[in-house]
């Protein structure tokens, strides 16, 4: 293998330009295929030779050279670091200023792959002055160039708030926002992902993104036929919603919640995940907002997600979202309970087949606990009584003990459905909280029935 690379090396300096071009193309394809090949290309010291004559070459050579750089940089951060150390960034920036759109595309793709790996490399790319040129590239008419420039901006801004701020300072947001209504699906994917990477870092950046008037337009993306467009649109809305209650309020007011709910209903699989998390974040901020989510018929799709999905993290997210909705007041918990979701939650929690991931179990447990603590809707709690494990049982009995002393009809119902019998069967240590609850319940009934 390295024999080939050594043979190709002298061809790079050949007099005939077409030979140089085909050599560069061959090197690029070799490096593209495999990590070891890329490392071999780097070790053979080809990069400085490739780059030394780049500014004077014609556009085909530049395209092939950028292809080589991209192919090497995409495999790992070390290779990308090697590429940067050879002084590739200045050359790539020179290529970005070229007239030919193919050359610009190759250069921005290579920059994107370099910036993807870690923040230092992104900072290096930004220091080379690539960002204003990329923003210019976005405004070009060719769609492929726009796509790649948008994906590069998204890769740069995803690492840290300062980088995102640099991208914003170059005026990228306005152009990205203008491209949202564009009919091309892949372009929309990249644009939405770029905006969501910018918005996720801080409140100010999120507000800047919102001020670019994306709101009603982004909702049309949620109805697109392409799944990843829907996913990225939902991600953007999630990043905006999670910062402050005011931003969530904005989303609710513009009807975003309805669109997100429809989007969840129409997709399957991981694509649903950002939508579910959006609902969770919106509901988490305040009880008015979670009431708004309930009113927009948010609970049925979440239940469906819980039941249908096979992936554990999606189920955990759905459980978390339901927990956020139900935890504010009894009204909310009642709505959640009416949708018959508590038995499902319990089943998932108890199920030994579900993954051992502590976090998911803990989140489901917390969700269940939060809802139960506010739930006074007794018919929903009944079936749970029969199946629950001890730590859940504590909360259920606690709820019963809060409601039963006051409500006659509920007491009668409790006895007739065999709830009281079940309570007697529970053995609890004397002095524990559970025992106290059981005592309170027993005190509501006359002695004969208790025996």
């Amino acid at each position: 293998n390295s024999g080939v690379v050594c043979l190709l090396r002298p061809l790079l300096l050949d007099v005939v330009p077409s030979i140089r071009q085909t050599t560069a193309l061959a090197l690029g394809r070799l490096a593209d295929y495999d990590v070891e090949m890329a490392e071999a290309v780097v070790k053979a010291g080809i990069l400085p030779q490739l780059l030394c004559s780049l500014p004077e070459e014609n556009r085909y050579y530049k395209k092939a050279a950028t292809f080589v750089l991209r192919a090497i940089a995409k495999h790992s951060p070390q290779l990308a670091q090697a590429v940067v150390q050879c002084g590739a960034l200045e050359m790539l920036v020179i290529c970005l200023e070229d007239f030919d759109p193919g050359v610009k595309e190759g250069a921005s793709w290579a920059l994107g792959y370099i910036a993807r790996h870690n923040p230092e490399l992104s900072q290096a790319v930004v220091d080379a002055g690539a960002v204003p040129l990329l923003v210019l590239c976005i405004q070009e008419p060719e769609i492929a160039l726009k796509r790649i420039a948008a994906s590069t901006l998204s890769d740069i801004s995803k690492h840290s708030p300062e980088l995102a701020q640099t991208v914003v300072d170059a005026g990228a947001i306005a152009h990205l926002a203008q491209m949202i209504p564009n009919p091309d699906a892949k372009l929309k994917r990249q644009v939405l992902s770029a905006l969501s990477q910018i918005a996720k870092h801080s409140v100010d950046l999120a507000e800047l993104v919102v001020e670019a008037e994306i709101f009603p337009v982004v909702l049309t993306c949620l109805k697109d036929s392409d799944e990843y467009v829907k996913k990225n649109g939902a991600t953007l809305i999630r990043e905006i919603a999670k910062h402050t209650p005011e931003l969530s309020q904005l989303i609710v007011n513009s009807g975003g919640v309805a669109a997100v709910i429809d989007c969840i209903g129409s997709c399957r699989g991981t694509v649903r995940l950002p939508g579910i998390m959006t609902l969770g974040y919106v509901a988490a901020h305040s009880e008015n907002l979670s009431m708004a989510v309930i009113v927009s018929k948010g609970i049925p799709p979440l239940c469906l997600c819980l039941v249908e999905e096979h992936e554990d993290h999606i189920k955990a997210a759905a459980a978390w979202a339901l927990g956020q909705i139900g935890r504010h007041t009894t009204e909310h918990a009642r709505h959640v309970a009416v949708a018959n979701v508590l038995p499902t939650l319990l089943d998932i929690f108890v199920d030994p087949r579900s993954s051992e991931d502590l976090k998911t179990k803990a989140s489901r447990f917390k969700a269940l606990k939060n809802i139960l603590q506010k739930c006074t809707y007794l018919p929903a709690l009944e079936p749970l009584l029969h199946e629950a494990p001890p730590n859940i049982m504590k909360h259920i009995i606690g709820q019963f003990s809060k409601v039963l002393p006051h409500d006659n009809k509920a007491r009668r119902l409790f006895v007739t459905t065999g709830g009281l019998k079940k309570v007697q069967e529970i053995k609890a240590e004397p002095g524990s909280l559970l025992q106290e609850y059981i005592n309170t319940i027993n005190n509501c009934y006359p002695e004969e029935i208790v025996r």
Partner: protein
Amino acid sequence: RYLSKMATLIQKWWRGYLRRKNFREVVEVEKYFLKFSNVYFLQIQKTWRGYYVRKYIHNFYALKKYLKAVSVNNELVRYELQEYAEMKENEEKMKDLEKKEKEKKYQARKMHYLLSTEQIPGVYNSPFRKSPDPMELLLRQSKPLTHRKQQVKSPFADELYGWPTCKEPPDFVTSLPVLPADRQKPQGPFRDPAEVLQQRYKPVEPTLRVRESMYSSPAKAREPTGGEEWRNPIHDNQFLPFSSYHKNYEKYEPSLFKSGKYGQEAYGTKYFREVYPKKWIADK
């Protein structure tokens, strides 16, 4: 004066003493008063706070209205999004249909020989059918497809304008012009291609005489008039050779003023101004 000062001093002290005694009593009275009437004050404040909170901060009815507004807005948004999705679907279907139509038409043109003649019914026009197949109708309508001649695409097509005067060798030469297959292959010692290219594209080095005439004063004097000529033409139409060939493209359009309802008006040819014999003075 000293006396009056002393008197004022004593009166000052006495008044202060009296007031302070009074003050302590008043304070005690107040305390007792408050102890009993605190309840009433509290009640007023309680009712006020409850009212205020319910009316402005946690206004239940405002919340209900808000939620209703949210759900109405959601309905609207859902409806519009549904319309948008349907529109997109329709567009896609239309595009698909058009593509299929184009395919069918192309096929019909290619298979034009399947058309039925007077004597022999064609494949799509079986005598047992009541009416010909739609494919048959399509065949009748379509023009037969002629094979396009093989176009030798010139590899320098987009460099053509710059070629005779370009300073560098041409860009990536992928395809050489197609030569006939049975041509005798030229043999013989060829020069080094790099040398040839270098010679072909050597930069222009004009002789002293030519260079002088390029930058001499008569040439420089001619320059501005050239610019003037470009700037001040009266007639912007291109000069087209074979002007009678282009006659069809330049129809004469009579001006709106002269054209009447049924053709050209006589104004401009037969008479030039409106004539009011009644206004003439000379005859009288």
